[in-house]
């Protein structure tokens, strides 16, 4: 099962005011800690955490926040992050941060197909692992899609 995380809702619950942007390290830290609490139960069972992080409604994400949230979630535990609702702007912040750490995450396009984001070697390894674990499979169109709900 995939853990669903509504990033906009987590942000709203984490910062005062009505801001829609994932900016600054302190904000990133608070948001990450909330996500860590949400996925903690799954970690205790020893399963690999698979989390779908939905960025719909999130305005801007800066490099510091991308590092504090996405990179640290991946660095500190065996996890697969599936990013959905991603804009080009979000991608612009997240991609270099992942590449810089030699990490990779997945982007789920609106049609359900997957794209890897981050360091090339880590991206290839991530896809291989997903297929090996039967978390993802090749679609008739030649792309990959999640098999998990």
């Amino acid at each position, binding site marked *: 099962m995939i853990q669903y995380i509504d990033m906009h809702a987590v942000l709203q619950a984490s910062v005062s*005011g009505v801001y829609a942007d994932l*900016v*600054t390290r302190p904000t990133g830290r608070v948001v990450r800690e909330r996500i860590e609490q949400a996925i903690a139960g799954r970690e205790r069972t020893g399963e690999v955490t698979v989390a779908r992080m939905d960025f719909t409604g999130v305005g801007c994400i800066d*490099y510091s926040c991308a590092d504090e949230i996405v990179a640290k979630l991946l660095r500190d535990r065996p996890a697969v992050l599936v990013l959905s609702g991603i804009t080009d702007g979000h991608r612009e912040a997240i991609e270099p*941060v992942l590449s810089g750490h030699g990490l990779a995450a997945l982007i789920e396009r609106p049609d359900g197909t997957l794209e890897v984001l981050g360091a090339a070697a880590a991206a290839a390894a991530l896809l291989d692992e997903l297929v090996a674990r039967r978390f993802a499979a090749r679609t008739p169109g030649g792309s990959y899609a999640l098999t998990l709900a």
Partner: protein
Amino acid sequence: MTRLVEVPAQFDDRSFDQFAGVFADANKDDERLLFDAHAAEWASPYGLVGLLAAGQAARRAAAAGTVERPLLTAPTNADVLSYWARAGFFREAAELFEIHGKVPRARAAEESEVLLPVTPVRAAEDVHAVVSKIQQRASAILASELSLDPKATMGFAMALSEACQNIVEHAGTGGWVAVQAYHWRRKLARRVVVIAVADAGVGFRHSLEPTQSKRFGDRWGDAAALEAALVQGVSRFRDPGRGQGLAGIRRYLVRWDGKIAIRSGTARIAIVPKWDDDVPLKDGLPPFPGAQVLIIIPEQGSAER
């Protein structure tokens, strides 16, 4: 005794070193300072936030725990005065200076040139407010007037956020940010958007010293600290993810042919695009506290537009 610090008539990043020299000389005796801007004809956002940083640094302890504020003579030219007020300068200056001269009441910046009036940055919350405001106000202008595509406008908010965070994370005090769009006839004959950020905090050298000075040995100083931060992407924090901010700003500016210059202490470093004739690194400048950041993004495409 009061020492005089003349504000250059054309006050921008080019004349800032002259201002810093006069300021450093006047401030060393711990006398009260008078910043004289009566003859000011123009000030860029960099000049305005730099003047606030000077005011912040010139506040000094007076008797019985009170703070004696420096004096500021406001510009006498009505247009200049009006522009400084629209840019939000006097609203911030009122807390730092004892202002002399007739200052117009501050109005909301309704003109398109002022994308973000001079805004204080003291905490992460302020950065949220700045990013939120700039996205509401600047997106359409960046796209229509600078021909930046939507990707670039999002990157602009990121760059602004990271520049402001430098104050929150490293300055040890508050600072200011201002964003303006204007037609830069002298240099480019194109429209530009300018982000100016300044504080009078500890500066890059002091911030990076505990983790970086050994590595640089005898070379360690303001210039080496700026080089480490902007070129090598190092941070005072040992966390491997740190240093992303300035690296991200650099990537963004390379992509959109922009410029960044950072002045701290006695040095100034710049990533210089082809359209500019600035030097990449200057050392031995007059000392000025904190850090002052200038980011310029030019209109994309034809210079004849």
